[in-house]
């Protein structure tokens, strides 16, 4: 099972990449854990998580080929 994870804005300063693919992730809580283990600095950043481009507020089960993204506060305009 593959889950694409996209990184944006100041989060890319921590991840040093804009995109990664994780395997065998059951849900977004587990995804957060795995990312925090890989990038401890993420704990200090405010961000929201999207699943297939919708912002989620609770744990969501991830299916194959789901697109997840970590979005720091927006600053367009």
């Amino acid at each position, binding site marked *: 099972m593959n889950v694409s994870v996209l990184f944006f804005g100041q989060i890319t300063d921590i991840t040093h990449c804009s995109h990664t693919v994780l395997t065998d992730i059951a849900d977004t809580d587990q995804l957060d854990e795995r990312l925090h283990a890989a990038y401890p600095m993420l704990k200090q950043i405010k961000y929201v998580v999207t699943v297939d*481009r919708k912002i989620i507020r609770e744990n969501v089960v991830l299916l194959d080929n789901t697109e997840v993204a970590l979005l*720091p506060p*927006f*600053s367009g305009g």
Partner: protein
Amino acid sequence: MQQIFCEGAISPVFIAEVIQKYSSDPTIGAYNIFIGQIRADTINQQIVSSIEYTAYKEMAIEKMHAIRSDIFTKYPMIEIEVHHSIGDVAAGEICLFVLVASAHRKAAMEACNEVVERVKSELPIWGKECFAEEGYQWKKNH
């Protein structure tokens, strides 16, 4: 779905072309236009020379579509156009162009204000303020 992103700065000529496009519609009585331009702000004695914009484009386009629908439901609108830069935009250049056309002034002004507010707070776009000397900081919207 409408494309909202322009590579680099938005030119005044492009803005004129958009206005021209609607000028033949005799049901339009009022346009309200908002233009955002990069300021050469001084931050910790460093001058901002440009902003580099990145976006989660697919999500931004979907979200913009939802905002358009909301605005058309809420106000008697004739047209809404939103154009936002992606990539580098230098100080003194234009990064955002919102045009709202309506039969009457009040709807055009209120809708334009609301579109700009929502573009800034709801579209997944990020600005990286690049300093003239060296370094950068991530832009914050208030």
